Each structure stands twice: as C-alpha cells, then as structure tokens.
C-alpha cells in the first residue's frame, strides 16, 4: 500500500531458505516478501516461526542456506551501515555514558572515512537532536546501568539512528519493558518513523504492538518457519492509544491471535477468547 507499484522495493526476499546445522526443520522455508521504502512492517508468530532469523538475515548476522535477499537491489553479504539493528537488551556498552553510546558509530572507520570536519559538527548536532528526541538530555552523562529499561532502549534506538540507516531492524525491542513504558515507546517509535523516513522491520511477540505500529503485519508459522498470512493494517498514519480499543482493531487482533494459536499447534485457550469477546462488547 505504501509502495508505489513501479518503484523497486527496499528489501526484496525471494525463495529464502535457512536451515541451522542439526535442526529437524527449516528455520525459514521458501520465504517471499517485498518491503517498500519507508514502510513499517511488523512480524508476529509463535516461537520458532523464524521471525527473528529472518530479521537477522536481513541484518547480515545470519546467512541464508539458499534463496535471494536484496537490499536496494543488491545482495546482502553481511552487516552494513545501511541496516542498523536494535536488540531486546544487553546491547548497550556499560563502560560508556549515554552520549558516548549514541555517538559510538562515529568512532568507526565506516562512518568517518572521507568526511569533512563540517560533517563532524553535523554529527554532534545529530547526537544532541537524538538526545532531545528521546528525552535523554538529562541522562547524557549517565551510565546505562543507571537508567530504567525503557530509557536504556531509547539509548539503543538513538544509537541505531545515529548513523542515519535506511533500514532499522528491531528484534523485540520492547519485549522486556512493562506495559506502560511500552505504550510510551510505541508512540515514540511511530514519531521517529515519520521523522526519519527509515524503513522499519519490527519483530515482536505482542500482537497489539504489531498492529498499532505496523502498516502491514506479517504472520509467520513455525516448523518449518514460513510466512502464513499478511495483514494490511487499515488505520493510516495518525494513530493514538484509543485505537487499541476500536472494534476493528480488536477484531484484527483477535483474528491474528487465533491464527497464531492455530499455527502454533497448541490448544485454543477458551478463557482468553471469552475475555477478548467481553472486551469487544464493552467498547461497542
């Protein structure tokens, strides 16, 4: 929907297979998908469905067994500065302050080669802007250990954005946060997406999060890991927390949850379904 038909996709995946050594089934089994520039795609699915493996393969941290994976029409051969990744936790450098963490990529040759001093100034301006954007000004000199989980993830996101990546890959970045903090982060990341014009590929186990953030929700199924259903999310770009109670939102959420349960091979949780239908009649 966000992708005009005649432009090249940002990420193009064709017949992608991945099998880990000694694994009984394929972690990725014939995955086909196009992701457009500036799109926000979210991935959900039962554990073992390969959503993280797919994300890590796009990031160049895993290599596919066979198939084609193109970013900007070029095959992915490893990690690159055009694809930054945000992890669930333990990725910040505890020996560096918040600001030093955010500026980390400026220490790397890949970001500093053939660049003038005005670029350095632009970079320091960008670090300050990211601090402000993430509400971290007061914590610039703090160590990551001194911050709450939510603040730490803001630093991780700011650090990933620092190098102006075209694509931001997020692997359950809010999975360890409490529900209230997560809501704040949802609006923040949607704002960042509009502002930075990056393509965001976001893996989560939280269906509500996937629906609230994504313009498409890709549901993957396990054993073997494959794409099951792709849901177009019809809520446009302006979203508020109230959306989570809209009947259409709840209906989609229920559909997706039900499909995940079916594909996971686990029994349906009747109590959970009843609670969901109760929520529908209350808001209707």
């Amino acid at each position, binding site marked *: 929907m966000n992708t005009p038909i005649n432009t090249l996709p940002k990420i193009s995946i064709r017949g992608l297979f991945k099998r880990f050594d000694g694994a009984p089934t394929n972690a990725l089994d014939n995955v086909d998908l196009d992701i457009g520039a500036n799109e926000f795609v979210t991935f959900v699915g039962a554990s073992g469905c390969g959503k993280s493996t797919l994300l890590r393969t796009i*990031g*160049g*941290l895993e290599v596919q067994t066979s198939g084609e994976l193109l970013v900007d029409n070029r095959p992915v051969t490893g*990690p*690159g*500065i055009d*694809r*930054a*990744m945000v*992890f*669930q*936790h*333990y*990725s*910040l*450098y*505890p*020996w560096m302050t918040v600001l030093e963490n955010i500026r*980390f*990529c400026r*220490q*790397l*040759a*890949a*970001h500093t080669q053939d660049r003038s001093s005005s670029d350095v100034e632009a970079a320091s301006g960008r670090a300050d802007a990211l601090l402000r954007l993430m509400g971290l000004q007061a914590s610039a000199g703090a*160590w*990551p*250990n*001194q911050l709450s989980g939510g603040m730490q993830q803001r630093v*991780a996101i700011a*650090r*990933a954005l620092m*190098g102006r990546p075209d694509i931001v*890959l997020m692997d359950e970045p809010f999975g360890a946060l409490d529900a209230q903090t997560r809501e704040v982060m949802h609006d923040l990341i949607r704002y960042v997406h509009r502002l930075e014009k990056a393509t965001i590929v976001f893996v989560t186990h939280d269906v509500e999060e996937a629906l609230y953030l994504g313009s498409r929700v890709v549901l993957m199924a396990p054993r073997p890991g494959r794409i099951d259903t792709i849901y177009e999310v019809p809520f446009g770009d302006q979203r508020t927390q109230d959306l989570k109670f809209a009947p259409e939102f709840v209906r989609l959420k229920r559909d997706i949850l039900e499909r995940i349960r079916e594909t996971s091979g686990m029994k349906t949780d009747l109590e959970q379904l009843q609670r969901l239908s*109760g929520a529908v009649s209350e808001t209707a």
Partner: protein
Amino acid sequence: MSATLPPICSVSCATVRSSAAAKPPPTPSIWAIAGRLSRTQYWAFAALGLILPFAVWALLSASGWIDPVFMPGPGSVFARLGTWLMEDDLIADTGISVYRVLAGFALSAAFALPIGLLIGAFRPVEALLEPLTDFIRYMPAVAFIPLVMLWVGIDEGSKISIIFIGTFFQMVLMVAEDVRRVPAAQVEAAQTMGANRRELIEKVILPSAKPALLDTLRITMGWAWTYLVVAELVAANSGLGYAILRAQRFLQTDTIFAGIIVIGLIGLVTDQLFRWLHRRAFPWLYLKG
C-alpha cells in the same frame, strides 16, 4: 464481570489490612537466605572470623595439650617474626619472593592475555589451542622441575618458569572464557553499525571483557603465590618459600607459621589492591541501586 468482582475483593482486602495493622512490621532476620547485613554487622562478623582462629590457636597452645614443636603459640610465632625481621632479613626474603611471583605472573599474563583473547574471539584458534591447553594444565607443575632445571638452569629463571607453568595455562582458559562471555548483542550491535573485525576487538570485546579480565588476574595472582614454595624448591637460598622449606628440615615450626602468615598477609593486601583497582577502573559496576 466487573460488577460482581469488587465487593468480594474489598471484603477480603479489608480483612488482610486489619490483621496486618495489628502486628508490628517484622524485622528481617540476618539469617534469612540472601539476607542483609548492615556495614557494622558485616565488619563485626569479619573481625570475629579473623580473631576466632587466633583465639582458638592461643588457647590451644596455652593449655599445653599440644607439643609446641608441632604447634607453636602465637607468641613464639610473632617473636620469630620479630627476629626474622630484625636479624635474618625478612625484608630481603619477602622482596625476592615478591619479585619471583610478580615476574612469573607478569610473564604469564603477557602471553595469556593475547592468546586467550585470540582463543575467545576466533573459533579456529580455539580449536587449535584450547584442547592442547586443557591437556597441559592437568600436568602437575612440580613434575616440570627437573625439565626446567635442565632447560633453564638453576638461577632466577627457573623459579620464575615454575610459577609461569603453574599459572599460565589456567590463565589462558580463563581469559578465553572472559572474552566469550561478552554479550553477543554488544558485538552484533557494533557489526550492524559497520564495525570491522579490528574495531570489534578494540572497541567492544576488550573494553567489555576488561572487568572480568581484571578479576581473572586477581584470582590467578593467588595461584602464582601458591606455586612460590614449589618454585623455591629449585636451588634457592633466599625467599619465603625457601625459608619455610629450610625450617621444615630443622623442625622450626615457628618459622613455618611465620612464613605462611607473611604470605597470607601479602595475598590479602594484593587482593584488596586488585579490588580497589576494580572499583576505580570500572565505576559503572559499583553504582548504588
């Protein structure tokens, strides 16, 4: 659903609250599993732990149950420490032993740090060297003494070599493990920010592993001291270990006790020095929650 639940809840909550208000808040026991000690309590127990063995020792020797040849009292041991210091050059014995331990330890660290780093960072190096190191570290260092004497001779080099053999192989494996324990997400985040292999090692793996590496040095320093007596078996005529060995020949148990206590004290001081350095170098690990 929400219409039926609140009354039930409020009744049960009220009951809980009134019964809780009747009792004073319980003081947590210091004997609770993973319980808490105040600073004063901690030092009180620490002092008790240090004083108690001395008290038992003093009582035993004062009671006259044990022949002072086997176990001299604290008095005669400290008297011996005094004469050793004033007449028999305790300072020189300590100095030469500290030198041997430090030299052996430094040599060991100089090789173990880079080799352990390579083992921890690169799988081919791990496959090449780790099984070999595992094999050698089970060989008793003492058994190498005849070889060391043959190859290195009987001067300082041989003593340093024994301490090196005793600590190096353990240290390599611990350094490799420290490097492997660097969180994968820290390394992968740097990779997706464009870090090359050298930058990964210099800017992520090394600084991330540093606190664990300093702890490894602290622990292996203790092992280096335990090999001192063994090292001074080789044609030594000075040093704390040598003094202990010679005292054994003449049944001077007070000298043995004095020597062991001096080594213990040096160990305690070095250990505290390492811990102080750790707090100074890595302040982010010691933040008050």
